């Protein structure tokens, strides 16, 4: 099992040789593919022959794959839409090398904690970069119309050129609507859960309704909220409140009953009252559940605010920008907005996750690393 046969290398070799044969027969297409083909060929041969350790193999495959990708993408400039089959053969060859690289990296069992963390970061990054590379290369190689799917580089340029508009949209949607709604929704859901936990009758009545609400398309209240609270950010915050309330309620109620019998009995032998039990045992024990709800709500909140903006806004906001720029066929601006929304959503989620690490450091899922 230590060194399984690297079929990706062999496949890359075959593809590149096929590409070379095609290139010689047809006498070359518009763009010059030879450097990329050559690089993949050299890397595949070197990787198969000289790779003594997984790290060396991964390094060779990494250089071959990304060098070839860079050569291909820079070589296609000026020849967009004229890529021949050899272009795609070289691209797939380079992609196989990257796959080999990731496989080799996955096989490494690092000794230190830092190395493991770095590896856990590098592997998904390579995957993500390759999605962008394939996207860029195929869009430009096949000349896919700009209206249908702009290349990542065009979207990046658009983000840079209209940074001020994007910043204003983020300010309106994220910092006003999402944060306000998220805070109110989560806090009120939490309060309702504590009340439901205190009074069993309330819990029996609210929990089935809360569970059912998880399946309902709550986002549909958006037009009603816009009608009630106007076009400003307040109506979007109201939608977010309604969307985040029930996940928080259900999860907190589940969390409050998660403390074990042993611990409860211990607290009882200490003669602790309801509130002492709540603050010293049951709330800390409920924290993993509460953070689960906070994480779910972080994505729900962003979705709620953006979709609510489809129903009417002042002339600023991410949802507003997306719906108007779609109408004006500025697809690159839409993608730029989506990229920013993705970053905002990930940062929000990541922030909650970091907070969770700090608060529930005692939980096995975090302690275990």
């Amino acid at each position, binding site marked *: 099992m230590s060194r399984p046969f690297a079929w990706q290398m062999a496949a890359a070799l075959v593809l590149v040789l096929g590409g070379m044969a095609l290139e010689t027969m047809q006498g070359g297409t518009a763009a010059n593919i030879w450097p990329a083909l050559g690089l993949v060929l050299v890397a595949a041969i070197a990787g198969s022959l000289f790779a003594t350790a997984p790290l060396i193999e991964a390094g060779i495959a990494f250089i071959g794959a990304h060098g070839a990708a860079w050569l291909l993408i820079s070589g296609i400039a000026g020849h967009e839409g004229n890529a021949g089959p050899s272009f795609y053969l070289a691209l797939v060859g380079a992609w196989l090398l990257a*796959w080999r690289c*990731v*496989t080799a*990296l*996955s*096989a490494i069992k690092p000794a230190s904690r830092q190395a493991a963390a770095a590896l*856990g970061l590098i*592997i*998904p990054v*390579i*995957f*993500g970069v390759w*999605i962008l590379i394939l996207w860029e290369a195929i869009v430009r190689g096949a000349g896919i119309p700009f*209206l*249908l799917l702009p290349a990542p580089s065009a979207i990046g340029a658009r983000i840079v050129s209209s940074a001020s508009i994007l910043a204003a949209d983020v300010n309106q949607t994220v910092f006003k609507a999402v944060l306000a709604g998220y805070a109110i929704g989560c806090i009120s859901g939490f309060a309702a859960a504590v009340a439901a936990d205190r*009074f*069993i*009758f*309330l819990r*029996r*009545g*609210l929990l*089935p*309704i809360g569970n*059912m609400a*998880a*399946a*309902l*398309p709550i*986002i*549909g*209240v*958006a*037009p*009603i909220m*816009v*009608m*009630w609270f106007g076009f400003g950010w307040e109506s979007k915050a109201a939608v977010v409140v309604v969307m985040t309330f029930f996940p928080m309620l259900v999860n907190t109620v589940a969390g409050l009953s998660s403390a074990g019998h042993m611990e409860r009995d211990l607290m009882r032998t200490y003669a602790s009252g309801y509130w002492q039990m709540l603050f010293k045992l049951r709330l800390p024990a409920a924290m993993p559940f509460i953070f689960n709800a906070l994480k779910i709500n*972080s*994505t729900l909140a*962003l*979705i709620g605010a*953006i*979709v609510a903006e*489809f*129903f*009417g806004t002042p002339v600023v906001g*991410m*949802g507003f920008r*997306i*719906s108007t720029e*779609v109408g004006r*066929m500025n697809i690159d601006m*839409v993608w730029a907005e*989506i990229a920013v*929304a*993705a970053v905002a*959503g*990930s940062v*929000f989620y990541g922030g909650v996750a970091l907070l969770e690490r700090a608060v529930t450091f005692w939980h096995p899922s975090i302690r275990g690393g």
Partner: protein
Amino acid sequence: MQFVKKFWTGASMDPLRSKIVPVLTILGIMIVAWYAFAVVLNGPFQRDLDRRAGRSPGLAGFLVETWSQPKPTLPAPHQVAQNFFNTTFMVKPWSRRSLVYHSWVTLSSTFVGFVFGAMLGILIAVGIVHFTSLDRSLMPWIITSQTIPILAIAPMVVVVFASIGITGLIPKALISTYLSFFPVAVGMVKGLRSPELMHLDLMRTYNATASQVFWKLRLPASLPFLFASMKVGVAASLVGAIVAELPTGAVAGIGAKLLAGSYYSQTIEIWAALVAGSLVAVVLVMLVGLAERITGRAMGGRPA
């Protein structure tokens, strides 16, 4: 007194007392609150209307008026129920005024999207469980993909597809697919990894191949996880279909009905469409539950 105490502490296990009565009570409180809010929210406009007409209705008359405005800020429950009944049972199901027609349009794209999403999720989960490199590289991105407010793309997907001549079901179903694959993939990965080491070791002593382990151990063990995540997925799928109907292209479906209602301030219509959407959601989740029960019985499972 004993009864009351029992009632509040829930000492009895009678399903009527422990489930139905509390739920009905809470629902009843909600409906009363709804009527009260309808008075509060519709009151100012109604008072204004009365003042201009020079009328001075008594308290009872005022209450009834706030509950029967044609375009209220908050329609009273009976107005919504009446509208829902009229547009569901009193018109032909295939006419454009019927909620059944709009629900069917939404339901069909939800269903197609969900089927593709569930299949995609299962495929991804199988890949992740069997290839380490996929696990290490794909799993973080699957999780990241859900922090992206993907519904934001919905209008664009529909418009872009329309520009190359694809309209109707497919773009909407695509959004449903994207939303529903994630819960299924994550749940299925968990499920496929749920067999204990003992069971896997037993399979090894039987000299079972990887595919035998998959079909005879991992897949059956994963079914409870699969159905639980499919319930989440089908609800997400419905939300995707509704939001996909919002942009200009859509002319039918619950989402289009919501948008039309918001353009013309037809609040009663919006609420009726919401009720229809909720009913569709409940039916979808119940269908998945039914499939779960049938599969469980076919596999010889006992009710837990």
